[in-house]
């Protein structure tokens, strides 16, 4: 188990002055796993994401990526095996959607022809093919989100010499309507497999329960539970963490847990 861990977090913590935003997070994500991070606002999800994406440096503990400290990876090495999708993007120039997706191929030297073929595939997967020629700036929030997802998928589409690939997604469903939320999570689920590991921050517990292999629940900067959806989505935990009285029933078709408020 230990040797195929893509991500290892040891005693991970982050403090801003005297305020502790994240403390003592222990986690191992193994290759091909889809791990969802849930928690109320201010629980430390964004802090965790910034540490994992390398934007912030941990104040305590360490992050190992393929057994090697994250800080020892060069940006160009990371770009070949890791795609990062932040919550919102600020592109204010009228690139065509296809050009934005093609940017995901920038770290790779695979040649224009192959890059274009990959762009077509991921655009079809993300349902943005008909937007290919539209300027990014004319797209709606949800369309932009799907184009950005296609971009990071294009980035990790092919095996890389550096090791199995990782996708970090920060609330990718936030700007989407219900059907596209489900579509997007299905896409993520499809991509996630033997060679691609996914760590996704999700707001909606039911979405996390339905699509993740494991769930980590954060509360006030601490990981209060890590486990399968059945282990984590429990009424007592939800009441303690989200301060909501909820019932958890069995999902009528998938058999997974379903939160009913």
């Amino acid at each position, binding site marked *: 188990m230990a040797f195929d861990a893509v991500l290892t977090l040891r005693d991970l913590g982050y403090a801003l002055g005297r305020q502790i935003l994240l403390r003592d997070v222990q986690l191992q994500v193994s290759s091909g796993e889809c791990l969802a991070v849930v928690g109320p606002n201010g629980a430390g999800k964004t802090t965790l994401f910034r540490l994992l994406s390398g934007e912030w440096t941990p104040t305590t503990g360490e992050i190992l990526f393929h057994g090697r400290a994250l800080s020892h990876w060069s940006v*160009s090495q990371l*770009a*070949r095996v890791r*795609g990062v999708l932040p919550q919102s993007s600020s592109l204010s*120039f009228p690139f065509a959607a296809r050009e934005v997706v093609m*940017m995901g191929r920038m770290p790779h030297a695979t040649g224009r022809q192959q890059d274009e073929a990959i762009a077509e595939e991921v655009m079809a997967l993300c349902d943005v093919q008909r937007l290919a020629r539209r300027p990014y700036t004319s797209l709606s929030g949800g369309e932009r989100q799907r184009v950005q997802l296609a971009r990071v998928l294009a980035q990790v589409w092919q095996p890389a010499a550096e090791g199995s690939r990782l996708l970090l997604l920060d609330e990718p469903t936030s700007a989407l309507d219900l059907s596209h939320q489900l579509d997007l999570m299905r896409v993520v689920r499809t991509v996630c497999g033997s060679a691609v590991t996914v760590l996704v921050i999700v707001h909606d517990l039911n979405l996390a329960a339905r699509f993740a292999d494991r769930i980590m629940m954060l509360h006030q900067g601490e990981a209060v539970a890590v486990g399968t959806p059945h282990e984590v989505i429990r009424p007592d935990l939800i009441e303690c963490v989200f301060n909501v009285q909820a019932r958890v029933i069995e999902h009528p078709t998938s058999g997974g847990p379903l939160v009913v408020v």
Partner: protein
Amino acid sequence: MFHSRPWLLLILLAGLLLVSVLASLSQGSLAVTPTELWQVFSDRLQGQATGTTQDLVIWQIRLPRVTLSVLVGACLALSGALVQGLFRNPLADPSLIGVSGGAAVGAALAIVLGGSVGGLAGAWTVPLLAFVGGTLVTALVYRLGVGPLGTSVATMLLAGVAINAMTSAFISFLATTAEDVRLRNLVYWLMGSFNVASWQKVLWVAPFTLMSMLMIPALWRGLNALLLGESEARHLGFAVERLRRWVIVLAALTVGVSVAAVGVIGFVGLVVPHIVRMLLGPDHRWLLPAATLLGAALLSLADLAARLLVEPLELPIGVLTAVLGAPFFLFLVMQRRRGQLYGL
């Protein structure tokens, strides 16, 4: 229009540049026919200085002037495109956000303190200090205006207003303290015209123009990625810090030498990249070279117009570009209010 065949636009722009250079060389108070133009060039290329009127007008007066306007136009348009990429904002312009003002302070300082260095080194202090001033302002506005979600247009433009106020106050202060001869140099330079063109100034500007253009192939990919956001560019494998330093240095360098040579000429850096983006899109691979060519062509044409419009007098070129550029800027601001400018 040229989105699918950008190289065609580059060819057309190169043609436009050639035409505007030839027109600028042959038109003026003394009209020169193409044959005479050819004669002057072939004589000079054979190493003969014939001393005819045509030779004097073309070789000593018009050619340095036209060359300088081409170089400065290229510099200003290129620096505009670079600054807009850096700020991830199509409304950034070196003169609006105070970069030109910073460069002007440096240049004015060098002119007023000038003589103490003397000789060739003295001639270089003007562009050098202009470059230092431009770099400081670019770095300052960048610190103030750029946040994780891109540039706040308001912060950037307000910082520019404040910096421009400070720089013009400082230049006025320098003018009041300068001695007679240096004051005259300063005033001539402040009026910002190409009638002060000389081969020496061409020699200042040319190496930096060429160097900036040679950097385009090394920068365009990173600049494209940077438009997605700084962390996005980093996640695509670009060394963002280094890229940003290069862009700041090149933008300040191109603005600095232009300002040092001919004073502050506004709006070229705003209007030219905008026109190019409308023609072929925002991809820096084509935007940077096309803006360089169009800037060169347009500024040499503008200088020709400045010479011809009110003959025998001459319009200061800065006045002409402001008269054309300021309404264009207002038009962009109005579009922005209606939300039609790139969804800003």
